[in-house]
């Protein structure tokens, strides 16, 4: 087990290095010299050429690309992510303010979709062919096709503009005004989790149906065990393993959904920050934001893989 964890950790570090190199290269491919951007931003266009050269040396832009990469990574470890041109503040401060919003809504969506998705999938598999199964399967098939932004707009129309049950949009920290915050969070969290709920339910249903066919389940029935015991102890334990891998992938999916949903509901989180940064060509923010999101996703998948190895001993030995 320890050897497995160590191997996965090494792989994770390796992936992070590739991620950072990719981000670095892509950002260097962008049109425009970073120094010229800096000069334009600080209105230093009248600087003499030798001062520009001095600035180039000061920012380390005279060094070779690999050395620039090392400088950039070292900066990240010191917490220096550069300065945003568009928002005119330190990228680290900007992200520190925006990330908790997405993390809060995202984790609510993650928890909701895990519970509801697995529950729906298990119930529909156990009651295969009954009306309940048909209902869940139909809902899940529709759930994976709904464009989340469209669902959000329709929900705003119905629950906010027509029925006046919920506020139209916006975000309030739960520490400031818990009740308002929760009311504002209802629609975004549902929109963020619909796809995840539906695809988890589909995956859970099909993998459980696979397990139900196995010989050891027939043996369990033959032994005269009760349905509850068979489902809880034998079916779920084996049937949910593929679902757990899927949960890991959904961390990235929920971040992707946040990009769209935060725009619909006007929520000042990471997702909208990324949209604003891309539209405003604020590359420092794009670079830092995408690296950070990838980091969270890699860590989440690492946790999933390790728990996977713990749940399924076969994984450890390949």
């Amino acid at each position, binding site marked *: 087990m320890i050897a497995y964890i160590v191997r996965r950790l090494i792989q994770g570090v390796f992936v992070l290095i590739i991620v950072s190199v990719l981000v670095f290269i892509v950002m260097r*491919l962008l049109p425009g010299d970073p120094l010229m951007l800096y000069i334009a931003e600080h209105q230093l266009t009248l600087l003499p050429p030798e001062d520009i050269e001095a600035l180039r040396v000061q920012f380390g832009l005279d060094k070779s690309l690999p050395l620039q990469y090392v400088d950039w990574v070292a900066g990240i470890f010191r917490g220096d992510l550069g300065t945003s041109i568009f928002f005119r503040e330190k990228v680290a401060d900007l992200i520190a303010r925006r990330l908790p919003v997405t993390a809060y809504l995202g984790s609510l969506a993650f928890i909701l979709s895990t519970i509801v998705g697995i529950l729906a999938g298990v119930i529909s598999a156990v009651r295969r062919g009954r009306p309940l199964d048909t209902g869940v399967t139909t809902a899940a098939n529709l759930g994976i096709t709904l464009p989340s932004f469209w669902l959000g707009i329709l929900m705003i129309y119905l629950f906010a503009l027509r029925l006046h049950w919920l506020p139209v949009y916006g975000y309030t920290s739960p520490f400031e005004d818990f009740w308002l915050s929760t009311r504002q969070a209802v629609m975004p969290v549902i929109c963020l989790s619909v796809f995840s709920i539906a695809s988890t339910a589909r995956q859970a249903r099909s993998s459980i149906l696979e397990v139900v066919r196995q010989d050891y389940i027939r043996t369990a029935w033959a032994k005269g065990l009760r349905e509850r015991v068979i489902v809880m102890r034998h079916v779920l334990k084996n049937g949910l393993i593929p679902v757990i891998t899927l949960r890991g992938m959904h961390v*990235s999916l929920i971040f992707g959904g946040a990009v769209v949903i935060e725009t619909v509901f006007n929520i000042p989180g990471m997702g909208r920050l990324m*949209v604003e940064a891309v539209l405003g060509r604020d590359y420092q923010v794009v670079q830092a934001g995408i690296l950070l999101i990838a980091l969270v996703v890699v860590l989440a998948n690492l946790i999933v893989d390790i728990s996977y190895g713990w749940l399924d001993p076969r994984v450890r030995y390949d």
Partner: protein
Amino acid sequence: MLEKRTLPTDFTEMLPRVSEFRRFRRVFFSRRLVVFGLIVILALIVTAIFAPFIAPYNPYKMDLSRKLLQPCREHILGTDSLGRDTLSRVIYGTRTSLMVSVIAIGIAGSIGMTMGLLAGYFGGITNMVIMRFTDALMSFPMILLAMVVAAVLGGGLKNVIIALGVGMIAPYCRLMCGQVLSVKENDYITAGRAIGASNLRMMLGHILPNCFPPLIVLLTLMMGTVILAEASLSFLGIGITPLTAAWGSMVNDGYKYLLTHLMLSFAPGLAIMLVVFAFNMVGDGLRDALDPRLRGTL
């Protein structure tokens, strides 16, 4: 695959010959939703090709004297803030949506499958480098990856297609690699190697054709994903110019007039849903019909 060896002694052990195609056809057409999905897709392709003949108006013609009309007899779905007919724009949106998704899938499929084939066939260090690279690609949410690529390349339909294509390489690569690893174990591969077939011939002639069924399923299922992603990008206003009739940007345009003109957002969104649903159902049907593990259970 079908058994073609004849065993000279024991004829009783031989299974009756089943036509693969007939079995596929029986399973595939047995579910009504799958047939429904297929009909929708065919209808969409026809709509996309013959859009100028089907659409009642020119989707790009602005007429400010007829702006924001409610649905009526002349404009079944009403008109938008620039006086353009919503129904015609939804019809033309089919073109944008199908074109972007088919080409993007083509790009992602060809690059991803080549990478997966190389990784699976050569194994060792090639496999490790390619798979870790795929892991790295997978750790960016697809929309975000496409957004950044679109930002690097600049706007325009062509760049949206490339951006979405790059965003979807990883799943193909992974699936292909897994397929190759399992196909490689077959006896006919060893036989091919024994007669001295070149690596290229082994990969293209013997391994690739035997990896196809699950890839076709993934291709169909990814159509839904890429259509949703394209719609999300155009909803955010990234890439596709506001003049182009794209469903995502139409939903966004309608958002401003939500209280009075619900149809402006509702109609294009429903179109997205219908298309994605159709592709998902056909993908499910293909999987049921092609996946050997499900054989006999359906």
